[in-house]
Each structure stands twice: as structure tokens, then as C-alpha cells.
């Protein structure tokens, strides 16, 4: 078992210390020593996010987290150039933002456009983990309300970890604030920032 002594370190150092050690040597089991309950909880959270099973102990004045690599665990942090963003379970290779400005796809026949948009939303999952943000503005916000025929699909995406942003000004404009059922109500600053962070923006 790998021992890590992180006593005397203030947050977030114990987590970083543990992280660095795991990145250098892929330990299957670790015992992390800290000197306060907050650090103990933080280290436990970190180890669990890396797929470890954890146990908390006391050792005199000190606090201990024992972690063992779980069965279905992702590999304990491959070496990577620091600093990097925290890695969710499946790190997308690139970040695609899809901006839906209408509840229909294309121009011409509205009924056709409505069906196409529903199909489009249902098929988006084929992008896999690359699909990073789904943003609804203007008429597009109607896809996120109680009467939307793709509501269940969107809820499924959200449950799977996709961040869905819904324009608050637009919901308000249509009087639909209370009827939104999926996604996070947001403002233009968040939308613009998400666009800036995305590797690719697809606008429909």
C-alpha cells in the first residue's frame, strides 16, 4: 500500500499531493494521512472520483483515508501534463456546442421542419462524448418545455451528463419560465463564454 503523508498542508494541497502521487505511480491501494476532517473528506472525494473504494479512519490526532482501486474503476489517473482540467468519466476528444435557435430545422414546410428537428435532437447522441453543450435560444427554448416531443430525449442527455443551456430571456419572452422541464436557465454571458470554450459550434 502506498502511504501519502499530507499532514500540515492546507486545502487544496492534500488533494493535489494525492493526485500527483497517483499520477507518478499507479498505486492500487493508498493510505493518505491528513490532519483535519475537511481534508479527509476532500481526499475521499478525490479518490472516489478516480474510482477508488474508500474507508475513513482515525490515527491518534490524525485523519486517514484508505483507498483501494474498485473493480469497474477507470485507471487511476494516467500521467498527464499538468495543469489540466478535471477528467470526467469519458473525456471528450473535442468539445462541440450545438446552438438551436428554432424549434424547426430548415426553412420551407413548418410541419416537416418540426419533425426534422425532433429527429435531429434524437440523433444528436451519435456525436457521443464530443457533444459538450446544447444551447437553446429564441424559438428553440420551446423544445425544453413540458409540451416538447423531445423532452424525454433531452432529459436522457442531461442525465447522461450533457449540459443543456436554455436562454432565460427567451423563456421569459414567451412566458414559458414555469414550463421549462429540462436544462439550466442561463444568460447571454454564459452562452457566449461556452461558445468561446467550445472547439466547434454548430448552429441550426
Amino acid at each position, binding site marked *: 500500500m502506498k502511504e501519502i503523508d499530507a499532514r500540515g498542508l*492546507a486545502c*487544496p494541497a492534500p488533494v493535489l499531493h494525492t493526485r500527483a502521487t497517483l499520477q507518478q505511480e499507479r498505486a492500487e491501494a493508498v493510505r493518505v494521512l491528513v490532519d*483535519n476532517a*475537511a481534508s479527509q473528506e*476532500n481526499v475521499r472525494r478525490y479518490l472516489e472520483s478516480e474510482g477508488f473504494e474508500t474507508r475513513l479512519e482515525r490515527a491518534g490526532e490524525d485523519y486517514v483515508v484508505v483507498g483501494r482501486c474498485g473493480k469497474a474503476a477507470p485507471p487511476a489517473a494516467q500521467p498527464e501534463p499538468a495543469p489540466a482540467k*478535471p477528467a470526467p468519466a469519458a473525456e471528450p476528444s473535442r468539445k462541440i456546442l450545438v446552438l438551436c435557435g428554432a424549434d424547426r430545422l430548415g426553412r420551407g414546410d413548418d410541419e416537416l421542419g418540426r419533425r426534422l428537428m425532433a429527429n435531429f435532437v434524437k440523433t444528436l447522441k451519435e456525436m457521443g462524448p464530443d457533444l459538450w453543450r446544447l444551447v437553446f435560444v429564441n424559438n428553440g427554448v420551446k423544445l425544453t418545455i413540458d409540451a416538447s416531443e423531445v423532452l424525454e430525449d433531452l432529459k436522457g442527455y442531461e442525465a447522461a451528463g450533457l449540459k443543456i443551456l436554455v436562454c*432565460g430571456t427567451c423563456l*421569459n419572452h414567451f412566458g414559458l419560465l414555469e414550463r421549462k422541464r429540462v436544462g439550466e436557465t442561463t*444568460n447571454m454571458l454564459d452562452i457566449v463564454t461556452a461558445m*468561446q470554450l467550445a472547439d466547434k459550434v454548430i448552429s441550426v
Partner: protein
Amino acid sequence: MRFPTDENVIVGLERADDAGVYRVSEELALIQTVDFFTPVVDDPYAFGQIAAANALSDVYAMGGVPKTAMNLVAFPVREMDLAVLRAILQGGIDKLREAEVVLIGGHSVEDKELKYGLSVTGFVHPRRVLTKKNLRPGDRLVLTKPLGTGIVNTAIKAGLAAPGLVERVTRTMAELNRRAAEQLGRFRVHACTDVTGFGLLGHLAEMVAGSGASVRLAARAVPVFPEALDFARMGLIPAGAHRNREFREAMVEFGEGVPRDMQDVLFDPQTSGGLLISLPAEEVEPLCGRIRDQGGTAQEIGEVTADPGERIRVA
């Protein structure tokens, strides 16, 4: 401890509200507040802005208009370049200018650790003072800035926050609560505070304690920095968040659907956080609409219920 007082003290130390309020005449009361802290970001100019926005916020939270300010500076003159201090002060002054507040003095001392903040004085009508202590059953709660700045700041210290995120969080912390505050006078606001060191649930608990009412919070409706949830999941949680939880846990019930990382964000200590406003349900949309029209954030996050148990239920 007993504090000296007189009949013109509208809000004093006993009330532990956001600021003190003292009646000058039938028409005018002074709001006074002071706040300073060690740097929360690396950029000295941004730190100055954030410190000023934070100090001004207490006046806004009391329903007032800030008028004058004084600087408080502790600076390691021997070890640090004076250009750093100049940048901090410039950030503060620029924020005051934006708020139309004048700087009329200040005081500085030599200190090993850099600190900056301001004492701010504002005006309010004595009968229009907003405090934490007036929740009414049926009210809705509105929050005007996203949560998670404490956790993100911890991730910044850890070198794990992307530059875009640093910039977004810095901008939010430096944002004045003025846009939201200026709208409050048009509505029947019953209670208001600003979300800072105790986190959303800590400040909400202060509002609920003694109110004879309870609160239902919709975790999914609470605006947050999405990255804060990721960082919380990996244990990048400031010690203050753990303390806030410990202190108020007994009042709070989390539904099964509220993930642990969201709970952490709800307890996360905020620097220069948003206003938390309690007002009648029918006024929520007009208020939020007006704030959003000004480019601000405003989100309904919960409601006040008649349950006299003074509980906070998060679902």
C-alpha cells in the same frame, strides 16, 4: 456583550445583518459597512475591483444607495512592489466610479500579509430598509449570481482551472450588485441579503432562523458555475464549505436527488456573491425580467412555506 446604542439605531450589532443602519432624520438613514480580505485572485487590479464590489454589496443588500467610501489597506511595503498596490487601488477606484460612489479617505498600515477592503456609507429611507428578517409564507426566493466561486478559487489555487473559467469567475465576483438592487425599490421585497462567506444555505439559514417559516429550495434551479460541480466531485472544496455545512446541517434536509457535489456548491463560501431576495410570487417574473434586461442574472430558486419548523428542504 452589551453594545452602546440609542433610539436611532435601526439595525445594530444585535441583529447581525449585512450592515448597520442609523436614522438621521425622518427621511434619511445611514447605512454603514466595512469589509476587507486577503487576495482572492492573482491579478491585483481585479482584486481591487472584487474587494470594492464586495464592500458595496452590503449597502445594496440593505436596500440602500452607496455614497461614500474609504480605503483600508494593509501592505508589505518592504517585500512587494508598490505597483501592485497602485493596481489594487485603481481597481477599487474604478469600481467605485462605476457605482457612482466617491472615495473620501482611507488608512493604510504595514503588514506582512496584503489586505484590501473598504468602509462604505450609503443612504436609505428609514422605512425602506431591507433586512434578512422578514420571510413570508408564499414568498419566492430569487438569486442574482451563480454559485461556486469558492470552489473555483480553490481549483485556481490548485492550477486546475482553465483561463476562460478564471476570467468568467473573476468577472462575476467583480460585478456590482447594483443592477439587481436598483430594481428592488419597484417591488414588494420582504427580505434581502447578499450571499458571501456562509454560502447560499448559510445565508438562507440566517433568514429562516427566527422567521417562523420554512423554505423549499429547488437545487436544479440554482444558477451555478458548472465547473464547480466537477471540481467538488474531485474534492477541491474549501475548508469554509465544510465548516458552513457543519454549522447549518441540522436545519437542512437534502432530498435523495440532490447529488453531493451540488450540496457542496450550496454550502460553498462566496466572494462578492449575488443578492438573495424574498418577494411575493407574482412579482418574481417582473423583477427577474428587469434584472435580465439589464444584463444581470436572476433566477427563482425556491419558496417560503408556512411550516413553522424553520427548516430548509432542498429537492
